[in-house]
């Protein structure tokens, strides 16, 4: 049976709607598992259905799902197309969920390949597609070239090199079993290497996710008790960004209400309406509401009043934001300090006054520092922000974890090597370098063998 594949069919980052295409025998079953709406299994072919993509209980995106049953489809297999409305992040998330539920990530051109393999496309129709495949390849080549010069990809390549060495070494042990002067690769050595490589790749993965944030924006909430200066802060930020704030009305992007560009860092502001509303209410911070917002956010700006003591609700919220990217913004520092800063120990604190521009600058610096944005070179982003390479990296890390559990189960070295080779292969797909002969060349370059 062919694997069911999924991929983003539209260009990432362009256009308000992205389409994820799923193709294969399990397409309808898999999408049905993560879809709230009507039962797609019973849906007639070539119909469109409204609903939500969910991860567990959580709604990820509001979508329209097209059901097309084989054979009258692009690939001649069952095809489901998900029209995602929630922007790039939601699209990537949906793709991730599909992969977690049994889909395989489509290779570039794989839908077209299947369309051809299943006899769907003829030459004339295919010519158009061929041009597309070509241009994609050119882009890939350019991207691969770019990323080779970048630091993150150099790191992936470095790890892949480590794996190459390890595999070549194991290969020597296998193919030349009696060469005792060649050190034997032990399970322990593999374990140590795998641990190191995994750690490094996890960092790259995290950095890539941050890189993605730069390109796609950081979902940011401003919370705080009434009258601490939330709307003033918002206004100051907006003031700086007048031309950039966009109000995306009439879409289902219920979360993102505006984008702020702080020197290239995009903040997707969430629930700014909430700020206005709380203005009318008195006293309390609205713990429940704040907690909900905290969950949604990738960056929390908690505004406190320098001129007031912290109340219990604020203390609770401070506790809650500690595990997330957060900045505690102490406003009104032009006024007398009443706040007990000891209670803010270990927190990320910036003191500002919304009346003074330069103080706001400190906040921006803090945000950049927090996401490590200075360190991530722009040229790397083009590559590692692609959902494809991030998914590959994630898959790689998952295989490394499999190896760790195989080590724990006392599997022999050469069985572990089979999974090491998979890691090597996946990393090669990321850097565009998968090439089998390499291992064999390595084998001869580094070891002294023979009759």
């Amino acid at each position, binding site marked *: 049976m062919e694997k069911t594949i999924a991929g983003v069919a539209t260009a990432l980052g362009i256009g308000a709607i992205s389409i994820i295409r799923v193709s294969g025998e399990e397409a309808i079953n898999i999408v049905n598992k993560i879809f709230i709406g009507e039962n797609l299994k019973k849906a007639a072919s070539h119909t469109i259905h409204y609903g939500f993509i969910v991860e567990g209980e959580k709604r990820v995106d509001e979508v329209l799902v097209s059901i097309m049953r084989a054979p009258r489809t692009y690939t001649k297999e069952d095809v489901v197309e998900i029209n995602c409305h929630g922007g790039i992040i939601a699209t990537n998330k949906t793709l991730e969920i599909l992969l977690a539920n049994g889909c395989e990530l489509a290779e570039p051109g794989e839908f077209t390949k299947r369309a051809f393999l299943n006899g769907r496309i003829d030459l004339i129709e295919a010519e158009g597609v061929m041009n597309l495949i070509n241009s994609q390849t050119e882009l890939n080549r350019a991207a691969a070239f770019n990323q080779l010069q970048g630091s993150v990809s150099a790191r992936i390549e470095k790890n892949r090199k480590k794996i190459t060495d390890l595999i070549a070494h194991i290969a020597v042990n296998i193919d030349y079993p*009696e060469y005792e002067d060649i050190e034997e690769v032990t399970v322990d050595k593999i374990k140590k290497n795998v641990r190191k490589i995994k750690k490094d790749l996890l960092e790259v993965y995290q950095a890539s996710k941050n890189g993605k944030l730069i390109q796609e924006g950081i979902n940011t909430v401003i919370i705080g008790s009434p009258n601490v200066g939330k709307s003033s802060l918002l206004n100051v930020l907006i003031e700086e960004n007048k031309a950039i704030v966009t109000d995306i009305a009439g879409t289902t992007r219920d979360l993102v209400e505006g984008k702020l560009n702080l020197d290239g860092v995009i903040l997707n502001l969430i629930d700014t309406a909430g700020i206005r509303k709380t203005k009318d209410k008195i006293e309390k911070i609205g713990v429940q509401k704040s907690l909900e917002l905290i969950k949604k956010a990738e960056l929390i700006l908690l505004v406190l009043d320098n001129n007031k003591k912290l109340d219990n609700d604020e203390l609770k919220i401070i506790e809650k934001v500690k595990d997330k990217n957060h900045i505690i913004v102490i406003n009104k520092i032009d006024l007398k300090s009443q706040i007990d800063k000891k209670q803010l120990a270990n927190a990320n604190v910036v003191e500002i006054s919304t009346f003074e521009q330069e103080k706001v600058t400190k906040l921006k610096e803090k945000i950049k520092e927090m996401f490590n944005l200075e360190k991530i070179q722009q040229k790397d982003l083009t590559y590692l922000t692609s959902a494809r390479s991030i998914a590959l990296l994630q898959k790689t890390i998952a295989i490394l974890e499999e190896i760790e559990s195989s080590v724990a189960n006392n599997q022999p070295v050469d069985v572990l090597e089979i999974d090491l080779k998979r890691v090597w292969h996946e990393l090669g797909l990321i850097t565009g370098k998968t090439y089998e002969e390499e291992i064999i060349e390595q084998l001869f370059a580094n070891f002294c*063998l023979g*009759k």
Partner: protein
Amino acid sequence: MYDIIVVGGGHAGCEAAIIAAKFKKKVCLITSNINNIADLPCNPSIGGSAKGVVVREVDALGGVIGKIADQSQIQMKKLNIKKGPAVQAYRAQIDKDLYQKNMLKELKKHSNITLVEGMAEDLIIENAQIKGIKTEQEEYCARAVILTTGTYLKADILIGNTRKRSGPGSEKPSLYLSDNLAKLGFDIIRLKTGTPPRVDKNTVNFAVTDEEKGADACLNFSNFKQNEYDLNKQVSCYLTYTNPQTHEIIRNNINKSSMYGGLQDIASVGPRYCPSIEDKIMRFYDKERHQLFLEPVSLKSPKVYIQGLSTSFPIEIQEQIVHSIKGLEKCRIITYAYAIEYDAINPQQLKQNLETKLIKNLFMAGQINGTSGYEEAAGQGIMAGINACLNLDKKKAFVLKRNEAYIGVLIDDLVTKGVIDPYRLLTSRAEYRLLLRNDNADQRLSHYGEKYGLLCKKEIEIFKQKLKKLKKWEQKLKETYISPNIENNEYLQKLNSTKLKDRISLYDLLKRSEIKLEALQKWLKIDAEIEIKEKLEVQVKYEGYIKKAEKDAQKMLKLEKIKIPEGIDYYKIQNLANEAKQKLSEIKPTTLGQANRISGVNPSDIAILSVYIKGKRNGK
């Protein structure tokens, strides 16, 4: 008039001739020296990692190398026993005299094989189809010809600053055949290999070396015939080392080696996997010593082969080197080491069935295709033999896939990627190593042997019995449950295994890496041959990994099923990269899968090609 002429009586030639005889063809085997049939001109051993598996594969298909090796071995060993099942393999030390005698006997058993002594020098061709061959004296006609010329084409023996036209061990070389092949349009490459000195065992001080013994149980290459042999009569090998003095001699005299200035006209490429001792010393400067294995050449001969000491130094330096080595201080060298240069063809000019693309019914196998090793030769020999017969019978070619056999990996690599240096099989060349195991060669291939009528009734029966037993015991393991009582848990703890919480089948228990099949005897007396137990254990224990490999293989097979029609003009396909156009035109892959493995052909080229083929098929 013969059906098939096989040129060359080495490991490829013998397999080709015998398998063709089993096809009931009238076969002529032409060799320059009948007394030197199935020579082992280099190491006196057969098998090893990957190679040993090939021996069992040839055997499973109905070939002879396995049985003859079993009859002629003086020491059997199982390699990689501490590693997993996918990399274990057998290796035999072979009594060279006995091996040659036994092979000649085997050839003579087949009344439809005619042995002819002669040196093939030219081919008879009509309308791009082979009609026969010419020796110095005579012409022989046949409907198909298989060339297995080994290292004999324009062979030169190199020692120090001397170059002498000669085949290995002063056998006669073929002087004109490779030029005549070039005239027909074959692309000729020049390769090199070498062999170490042989010393007199009566002059070796074995007492100061380390003894290397054989396995302590009987092992057999053959899937069908289990020889019992006297373990006490197994002959040992011995291990010694080079030392700083050896290295100094080599460095001080390096210019005298043929390869380091002794000869100025070296144009050939030597094997990467098998460097000469001078290569090792010069390339791995820091290494204080290199291993040398002393291997007996035969029971009757006094010769001992020094594995690890291949060289092209002049004989006086060889004397110095050998005498600098522990245990060899006073030994007498019987034959000196030499390097040998020879012509081969670029194997990319072959189809997957080992027939040449240029000339119909002309096949090639063995070192002429750029490989090295007796086992690689035998694997190609049997495949060329089978395919020559199938061609004559107008039947579909027999091609083994990369997930079916090392032989498949070998031939696919040769015809798809070509060779730079003499090609040796390595486990790392196989993507699906876990499927290509030593234990399951018969399960993978014997059905082909049966299909083509290459196995006798008895062999088929033995194979079927094995499968039956395997199934039976697998079923029993699945049906036998044990419960988490104190006794069982104490037993498991003793084996460093975790306690049971629920009842479990022995089948699932065996999946635990620390539980060996033998440990299950407590609950189920497994009354089966060692071979069955081995198969059973591997099959159950590595089921998960095997399934993963099978899944990957299926993915590859999908592309393998898409045939590329002959006669495509790749230069007319729009959008193909130039490199792809050039490589595809040269190699002419037969399936999309093969095209996908050509280096320089990118995935996007494959997509474009696949669309193009589809269009052609629809007549557009």
